[in-house]
């Protein structure tokens, strides 16, 4: 009886452990726009996992790219960085601004693939908050 109790307790603890682990990283549902001081639009919807599953994207650097001298480095990946680590809020001559980069990365791909949202309000959805 004691043995059974211990076994049950272990199973329970393991279940709790996995449940906590699964929920500890909140699923991404929108693009983090907190860096913009005065955003005119609500943050864009972006369900990371659902998107990559639907778009059949396996490689991180498909989106999390690294560019050097205007050339995309195929073997490099930047998923451990913030987009804003490279892309500034202000427009510069060297590279797209943060907003330009977001638009180019999302809408650019949607246009070339002819899949996914391309109109302003399809991503910047008002029901997600804002006015």
């Amino acid at each position, binding site marked *: 009886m004691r043995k059974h109790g211990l076994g049950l307790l272990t199973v329970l603890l393991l279940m709790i452990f996995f449940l906590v682990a699964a929920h500890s990283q909140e699923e991404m549902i929108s693009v983090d726009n907190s860096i913009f001081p005065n955003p*005119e*639009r609500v943050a864009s919807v972006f369900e990371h996992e659902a998107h990559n599953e639907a778009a059949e994207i396996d490689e991180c650097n498909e989106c999390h790219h690294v560019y050097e001298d205007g050339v995309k480095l195929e073997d490099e990946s930047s998923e451990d960085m913030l987009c804003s680590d490279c892309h500034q809020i202000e*427009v510069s001559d060297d590279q797209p601004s943060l*907003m*330009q980069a977001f*638009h*180019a990365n999302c*809408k650019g791909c949607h*246009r070339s693939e*002819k*899949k996914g949202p*391309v*109109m*302003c*309000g*399809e991503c910047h*959805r*008002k*029901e997600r908050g804002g006015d």
Partner: protein
Amino acid sequence: MHELYGLLTGPLAWAAFFVFIGGSLYRLATMLILVHKKEKFIFTYMSWKYSFRSIFHWIIPFATTNWKKHPVLTIVTFAFHICLFLTPLFLLAHIVLWDEAWHISWWSLPDSLADMMTLVVVGACVFYLIRRISLPEVQYVTSASDYVILLIVAAPFVTGFIAYHQWLNYPLFLNLHILSGEIMLVAIPFTRLSHMIFSPFTRAYMGSEFGAVRHAKDW
């Protein structure tokens, strides 16, 4: 929806701008050729000074007798035309599209202000409609096309307002917004909306005739 949006923002947008710019140049050219053929004598008294004196008075609210006589119409007309031009040219969403397509960018209006300016345009269109129906002297010079023109001008703003607020069917209204904007551009050279192109010339002509021939004010 990708196909329709692509068509509206691609080939149809090109066609609309081509017809708008090409049509406007064509109308200007044919107007000048016609003047040269039939009324060349007006160049004997056309004057820069009197032209600009007249234009200057008429582009300022209440600077002419006629503006003073109709204060409500004056306010509505100036508010309407200012908002009609500034809202689409300085709308953030439009500038983002110019930036994406041509890498050109300029100063933009806050969305909340552009929203109110849109309502000014639509409200003014309602005012013009009521005025056309209710004032006998306006109704006398009104034809069916004048109502169509009002609809053509109001449509991009009404659909744009609905699309911006994401009411009803968003993709449908955004596409209708783009289409109605293109219809307006195409209509400018070939309808009474052509006063956009011709008004400086008619004003200059009037100013010159009143200034140089009649020696009178035309404001």
